């Protein structure tokens, strides 16, 4: 790791002896039992709990109150901490999820370290679920166990760490652009890294967007320009993240910027170089439906607006080999000696928005393995529909440029097919297929459009209405069923399917077939995830920290997810997630100091044999192996899985040691609970 964790560790090490409190003598524990009105007192004899616990070893004071969480109740605790010089407090009351923070704050106000206060849950875990005299017996056991825990607790302080006020955004699609703009607008520096020569991502390739049918580029390009001109956004296109080290607030990133061999400040986009270039290769942006030169601009509105010389296609970056582009460049922008740049930065947070690819149609055996020329995927059709596309927005099929009169759209191509392809729903295909069919009908008025579908999933604002419009107003024939086979017959593409609503076989001799291919994570997502030490799910999409409650965060603190890299998403969702991830990142960047729970794992270096069994146990990569294991306490989330795995007892958990738990077990099970009376 390029830099070591700097925080001053104010917490005692695992070797620290059993703290006996500020006085240095034996423990002086106070136990405060709450009646909670009748909630506890109805089934638990609170007086008996107080009586029994007051004789328990280490307990020097026990009291009860109607409502311990009330101000008078808290005052009772605060007063006792001072008067009885308490070294630890147990509040026997409701679940710690309710008032642990309340009582710990009260303890702190009275001068007791908050980590020396624990809650014994005698309401949710006892008074509310039991009845009879055993209820009081159990409450006493619960309180005793917690007294044992507090006896072993050390005073702790939240771990504090400084951080860089800069953010890395990986991926320059709409989600990444949105995240970058939001973070920069909040006043923080942003590095926006994009692998291709231009930002814009998939959205730049789209024709019009559902359900409003506004032009994709018209709404995207202003955002692209804004990002490129923002004083706090540094745009790094044609660049890739090479290395990431560090941790929350202090990531050190290395970015490799490939040479474009064109000086963007000098290039005036005249295009003479591309005309002069003798090379022609398929255009990635047009998905192979048009050609580009080795020196090219991916699309006219590209940002940054400069040509890029693609080294792999060029004859050789050498005046002796070709140099036709340099000869015609009157601006003198072409520089064959441009070196690769290596950019190193410290960032506080990282947003990953690396987007999606389409599942290759070459994998679809049933639809001709991508060998039938007029079987295309959704993005190819987007390019055909685009005014700036290879056919200038006229619907013409790739094989012979003919206007197709019958078009079959196949939904769920590769999606929802666990046997052969992807099991998940790609979510956006129902909508974009309706859009495709509708735009086709607008383009070719006498054309016939068929849509094969499994079911229509149009859960979004105004989405259902849009599909209904396609079905009813635009007279697009929706056929419920799967297509069994697609094959070429003369200049037709024959589609065999079944309409499961009528039970009849359907055969269409189509001119063009459009496959709504499944969405998959963009190439390299897994490799990047490994560099970032974040997880991918089974299908390769980036995994969130919690499926419901932490959908924007990766498991590694300080790394956030946005857009389709996290799972199939449409534009509004990708934008919303970009903004959400930005808000999460801003919370880190704007914090005066970052704090982290001190209740984490730590290594007793005298006992550690360096066996490294703990290392793979940690889902956060917080443990570095060596002569002795080292826990990065900023990465540790405190699960304790490594502690349980350590064969030499060297790994411990602060304030949750084995010794504490074993004493709790004994206290919970011990006899000698005298419940006098009844």
């Amino acid at each position, binding site marked *: 790791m390029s830099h070591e964790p700097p925080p001053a560790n104010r917490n005692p090490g695992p070797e620290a002896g059993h703290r006996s409190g500020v006085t240095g003598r034996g423990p002086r524990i106070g136990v405060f039992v709450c009646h909670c009105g009748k909630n506890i007192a109805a089934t638990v004899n609170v007086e008996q709990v107080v009586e029994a616990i007051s004789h328990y070893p280490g307990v020097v004071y026990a009291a009860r109150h109607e409502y311990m969480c009330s101000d008078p109740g808290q005052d009772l605790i605060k007063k006792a901490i001072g008067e009885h010089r308490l070294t630890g407090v147990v509040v026997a009351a409701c679940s710690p*999820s309710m008032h642990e923070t309340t009582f710990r704050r009260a303890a702190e106000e009275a001068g007791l370290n908050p980590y020396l206060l624990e809650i014994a849950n005698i309401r949710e*875990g006892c008074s*509310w*679920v039991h009845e009879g005299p055993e209820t009081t*017996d159990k409450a006493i056991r619960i309180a005793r166990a917690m007294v044992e825990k507090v006896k072993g607790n050390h005073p702790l302080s939240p771990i504090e760490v400084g951080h860089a006020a800069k953010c890395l955004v990986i991926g320059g699609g709409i989600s990444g652009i949105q995240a970058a703009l939001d973070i920069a607008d909040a006043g923080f520096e942003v590095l926006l890294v994009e692998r291709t020569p231009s930002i814009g991502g998939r959205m730049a390739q789209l024709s019009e967007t559902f359900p409003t049918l506004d032009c994709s580029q018209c709404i995207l390009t202003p955002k692209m320009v804004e990002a490129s001109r923002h004083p706090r956004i540094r745009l790094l296109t044609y660049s890739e993240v090479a290395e990431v080290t560090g941790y929350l607030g202090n990531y050190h990133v290395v970015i490799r910027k490939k040479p474009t061999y064109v000086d963007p400040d000098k290039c005036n986009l005249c295009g003479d170089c591309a005309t002069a270039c003798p090379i022609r290769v398929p255009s990635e942006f047009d998905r192979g439906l048009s050609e580009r030169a080795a020196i090219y601009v991916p699309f006219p509105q590209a940002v940054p607006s400069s040509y890029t010389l693609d080294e792999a296609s060029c004859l050789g970056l050498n005046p002796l080999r070709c140099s036709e582009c340099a000869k015609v460049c009157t601006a003198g922008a072409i520089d064959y000696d441009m070196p690769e740049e290596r950019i190193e930065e410290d960032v506080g947070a990282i947003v990953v928005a690396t987007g999606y690819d389409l599942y290759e149609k070459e994998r679809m055996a049933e639809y001709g393995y991508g060998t039938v020329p007029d079987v295309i995927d959704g993005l190819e059709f987007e390019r055909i529909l685009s005014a700036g596309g290879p056919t200038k927005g006229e619907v013409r099929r790739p094989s012979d440029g003919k206007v197709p009169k019958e078009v079959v759209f196949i939904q769920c191509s590769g999606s929802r097919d666990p046997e052969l392809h992807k099991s998940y729903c790609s979510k956006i295909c129902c909508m974009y297929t309706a859009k495709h069919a509708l735009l086709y009908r607008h383009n070719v008025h006498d054309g016939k459009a068929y849509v094969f579908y499994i079911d229509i999933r149009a859960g979004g604002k105004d989405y259902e209405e849009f599909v209904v419009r396609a079905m009813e107003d635009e007279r697009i024939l929706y056929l419920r069923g799967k297509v069994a086979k697609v094959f070429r017959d003369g200049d037709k593409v024959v589609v065999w399917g079944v309409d499961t609503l009528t039970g009849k076989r359907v055969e269409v001799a189509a001119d063009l077939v459009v496959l709504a291919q499944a969405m998959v994570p963009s190439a390299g997502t897994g490799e990047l995830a490994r560099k970032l030490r974040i997880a991918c799910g089974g299908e390769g999409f980036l995994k969130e920290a919690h499926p419901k409650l932490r959908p924007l965060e990766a498991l590694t603190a300080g790394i956030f997810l946005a857009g389709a890299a996290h799972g199939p998403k449409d534009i509004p969702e990708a934008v919303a997630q970009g903004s959400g991830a930005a808000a999460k990142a801003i919370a880190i960047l704007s914090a005066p100091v970052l704090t982290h729970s001190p209740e984490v794992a730590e290594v007793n270096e005298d006992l550690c044999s360096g066996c490294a069994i703990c290392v793979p146990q940690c889902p956060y990569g917080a443990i570095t192996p060596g002569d002795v294991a080292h826990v990065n306490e900023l990465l540790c989330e405190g699960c304790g899985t490594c502690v349980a795995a350590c064969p030499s007892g060297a790994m411990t958990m602060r304030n949750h040691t*084995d010794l504490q738990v074993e004493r709790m*077990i004994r206290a919970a*099970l011990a006899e000698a609970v005298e419940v006098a009376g009844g």
Partner: protein
Amino acid sequence: MAEAQFEPRIVAFLCRWCAGAGADLAGTSRLRYPPNAVAIRVNCSGRVEPQWVMEAFRSGADGVFIGGCHPGDCHYVSGNYKARRRVHLLKRMLSELGIEPERVRLEWVSATEGAKFARLMHEFVEELRALGPRTDPGEAAPSAALPAPSRRKG
């Protein structure tokens, strides 16, 4: 009652995110279940050491309950899987020591499964009643046959 019914002693290790929250929900839902188990809250079921289970038996427990998040839902990604593996091995060891493996029960309880938690408490108590008090083969004192913990962590 003519003869007092056997009341097994149980220690329940509950993870704070799922099983612990499920137990809390059983409370807020006022679902009654027998009071035999005393809960010890842990961050994750993956924190539960087999040694703790042995300590519970040494200290007179008749059963040990471990509650974690459902597979795939672990707050710490995979701690529950680690717990499952450890409990699996532990049960084999228990058989060799002459302790019925059914005395250790690992269950997945989500934060919404208060009713399931209450039901499991009923079930486990019934099962342990059927098994009877834990006895160690050939020993009068329940703790003598069990190995003392081999290590200590402060």
